[in-house]
């Protein structure tokens, strides 16, 4: 546990993190873990975060050392895409039983599990995740991994991020530490070149990185490693030979970028592939960093030409939606919109942003939002489901963009909703992705079901019929049980009152 505590201290003190830089020494030492309120907490644990960051590495066997729930309740639930291997979607867990826990057989079972995986699947690497219970009973997964690696002659990587260590975000960072400690730099590529880059924190959700890669290909830029989206183990292991890096989801992998810069002199920038101007800026930044590292400066001109062409095409396509979406009000409810260029593009075609959450945004981010939105009232830290529901059912937004967690708040409030988080069905990155996002917003808002679901039953609209709560299944169930107790429960209205 002590080495884990040291690691946690280390990742909390992240000099490249905007938020962290804004703190004084004492606050920095306390780390960025927010104490959770029992009975009012939401979000995943550190193990969840580690798995999210690493599991999209497609040819690795991901083995979760835990009782059933950690893996059994969560496997194959994210929308990252692979262009080849499918092993990452096969779930492996030691599924510890009571006997294993009581008899202390965890380590032995883990070792045997690694052997079984090696024999049946021959993966280039096995990633072994520790979890609350195996941390609590003191299983030394580092030792087991080391022994297994020696014995079986393959990379066996311990991922020390048990759920009780903290939040999902911490898990992201601990996963990055595991890559730094055990993976990156262990394979020397024989084809390193001046146009090699790493993309860090890109998950290839719905395959959206494939909307970007052809742009880079066109410029002659090679993606040495995209971590983790559609990655292969060897890509990651040889990522230290890239010339430059872009950090896409900076809150999750900023520590990885900074340490790779320190260790292997790979400069990085934070950017985004969401939105038109951000995509262009990212391409520019990549080219500039490569030139700084010795690439031929002619790439800068080619990049500008490509950007001009692609932007023109995208804006052209978006223009079609202006008439349909002009004046429509968008509520953004996500951990932190990293890409203000999405907001910018939506506003550009005439949409209005009526609110955005800034829970995970940095101070600078907030300033930028204020400038774009020109109204502080539209910023909120986090909105309780009840308030969100109230806002939406009063019709204060035409669509909510959020993650799956609040999906049904919007839908039950009969408001159009679009998933912009990890379970989403559509790729939104790059120029085409932005057009796709707007197209999906349009499809959601203009769908003919909205007028149908908001329509009350004809018999409920007649004057004189009670209007406080139109009948739901809920009530019929209660009314029904009230009838059962005709002898003991006085009236139907009493039980209706009771359910409110």
């Amino acid at each position: 546990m002590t080495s884990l505590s040291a690691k946690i201290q280390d990742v909390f003190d992240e000099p490249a993190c905007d938020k962290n830089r804004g703190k004084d020494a004492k606050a920095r030492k306390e780390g960025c873990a927010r104490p959770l309120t029992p009975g009012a907490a939401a979000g995943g644990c550190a193990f969840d975060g580690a798995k999210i960051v690493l599991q999209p590495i497609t040819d690795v066997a991901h083995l979760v050392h835990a009782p059933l729930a950690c893996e059994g309740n969560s496997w194959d639930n994210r929308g990252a895409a692979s262009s080849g291997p499918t092993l990452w979607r096969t779930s492996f867990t030691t599924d510890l039983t009571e006997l294993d826990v009581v008899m202390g057989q965890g380590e032995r079972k883990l070792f045997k599990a690694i052997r079984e995986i090696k024999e049946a699947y021959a993966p280039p690497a096995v990633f072994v995740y520790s979890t609350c219970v195996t941390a609590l009973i003191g299983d030394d997964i580092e030792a087991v991994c080391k022994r297994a690696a020696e014995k079986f002659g393959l990379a066996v990587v311990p991922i020390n991020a048990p759920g009780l260590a903290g939040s999902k975000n911490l898990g992201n960072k601990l996963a990055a530490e595991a890559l730094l400690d055990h993976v990156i730099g262990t394979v020397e590529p024989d084809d390193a070149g001046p146009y090699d880059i790493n993309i860090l924190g890109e998950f290839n959700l719905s395959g959206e990185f494939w909307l970007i890669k052809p742009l880079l290909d066109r410029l002659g830029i090679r993606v040495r490693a995209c971590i983790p989206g559609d990655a292969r183990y060897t890509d990651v292991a040889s990522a230290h030979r890239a010339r430059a890096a872009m950090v896409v989801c900076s809150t999750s992998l900023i520590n990885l970028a900074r340490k790779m810069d320190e260790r292997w002199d790979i400069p990085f920038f934070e950017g985004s592939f969401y939105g038109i101007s951000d995509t262009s800026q990212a391409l520019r930044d990549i080219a500039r960093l490569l030139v700084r590292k010795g690439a031929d400066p002619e790439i800068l001109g080619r990049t500008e030409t490509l950007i001009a062409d692609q932007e023109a095409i995208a804006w052209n396509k978006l223009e079609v939606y202006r008439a349909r979406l002009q004046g429509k009000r968008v509520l953004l409810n996500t951990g932190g919109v990293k890409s203000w260029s999405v907001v910018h593009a939506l506003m550009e075609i005439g949409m209005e942003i009526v609110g955005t959450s800034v829970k995970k945004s940095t101070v600078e981010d907030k300033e930028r939002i204020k400038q774009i939105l020109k109204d502080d009232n539209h910023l909120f830290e986090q909105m309780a489901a009840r308030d969100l529901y109230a806002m939406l059912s009063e019709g204060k937004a035409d669509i909510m963009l959020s993650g799956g967690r609040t999906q049904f708040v919007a839908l039950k409030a009969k408001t159009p909703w679009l998933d912009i988080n990890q379970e989403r069905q559509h790729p939104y990155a790059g120029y085409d992705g932005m057009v796709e996002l707007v197209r999906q917003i349009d499809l959601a808002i203009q769908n003919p079901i909205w007028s149908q679901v908001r329509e009350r039953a004809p018999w409920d609209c007649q004057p004189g019929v009670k209007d406080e709560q139109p009948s739901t299944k809920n009530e019929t169930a209660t009314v029904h049980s009230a009838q059962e107790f005709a002898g003991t429960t006085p009236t139907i209205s009493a039980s209706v009152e009771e359910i409110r």
Partner: protein
Amino acid sequence: MSRVVSQTKSASVNPLKSSQPLGAALAFLGIDGAVPLFHGTQGCTSFALVLFVRHFKETIPLQTTAMDEVTTILGGSDNLEEAILNLKTRTKPKLIGVCTTALVETRGEDSAGDIADIRLKRAEELAGTEIVLANTPDFSGALEEGWSKAVTAMIEGITRPGERARQSKKIAILPGWNLTVADIEHLREMVESFGLHPVILPDLSGSLDGTVPDHWVPTTYGGTSVEDIRELGAAEHCIAICEHMRRPAEVLHKVTGVPYVLFESLTGLKDADQFVSLLSRISGEPVLAGVCRRRAQLQDALLDGHFHFGGKKIAIAAEPDQLYQYATFFVDMGSEITAAVTTTDMSEILEKVPAESIQIGDLGDLETLAGGADLLVTHSHGRQASHRLGIPLMRVGFPVFDRLGSQHKLSILYQGTRDLVFEVANMFQADRHAPTPEELDPFRKRETPGGPRSSPLARH
């Protein structure tokens, strides 16, 4: 009689199980005004929540005691108390269903003692809210056990003990977790058609049936009322459905003296007949014409459908009671169970599953055993095996996250069995291959039809 083969692998490959606390939480979700509370880290709750949402497509009230490293060392009773009080203030629930997890059970928390203390100390603040505990470590059992333990705990904790005056016509029904919303609605209608008054515990048909409430509700809306659980002892009879409901039925009998009858399954003509006869006997009412008509429709479906089932090889992976439900359905239609995988060897029902052997295992085992089968039957996670083996997948149980409407699929009594016959027959018809001369050539290389498929292990 089937032979149960125990698991020898160390690495579980593609789990079949969902965790035990998840099963308990599901049972609590069938109670009106309830919030299940996982006593563990936030991740335990988050994973279960996401899985519930993916399956039901509903908001799911589910909370956590948010244990961390420090509280794991010092003990979780303060977190438990804080969580309960927070839930009480914020959501005003009628029931908080505490489900323990592997973390607190490994630590050896005395959650029952803690809850007793909290109730005593905070009696005033907690007035009007029942707190029930299910000890459900993730390292044993699965959905079935969790569900069963939660129902048992509610009866032990809430139902008024002692023999009572029986309310004539009142029937307690304890359904297994594998009954869908549609099943429960149908069950209720059937029981009511005999003039009986069913109290169904738990009742997911009230809370997770996909209705749209007109105001924001932070707890479950609909389901069995706490008051109904309290008065369960006034029932004339109890009908338990599925072997895993034997324990709650026995506890109800012990606590209140209500006699029970257990149905291992309500799928299939014979079981439906027995169930309907029992209702008729209890109520003294004749079977209505509409029910007879449904029975006749099922008979007709059996006649039309049996062509498609005869000789078919079926591979099923499910928790014990659901395995029994579907295995008997297929065997009664003339099919053969060539692979049966389940989660535990502890259930009595396994002896009765009509399969030669039953593997305790996971979907990796199903994939290995299912070579040559005509149909896979399991939950949505079977999709990868189905794809690799090229065998169609019938999605049953939990979770079903890649098809809509699983909760509105009927699978019991005459009508549900009829629907199942059609569903499966249609899958077979959709998957039919045109004959080729090569296949039919009498001099072809004679392998067993379907052939032994290459090991899925070689496919990566």
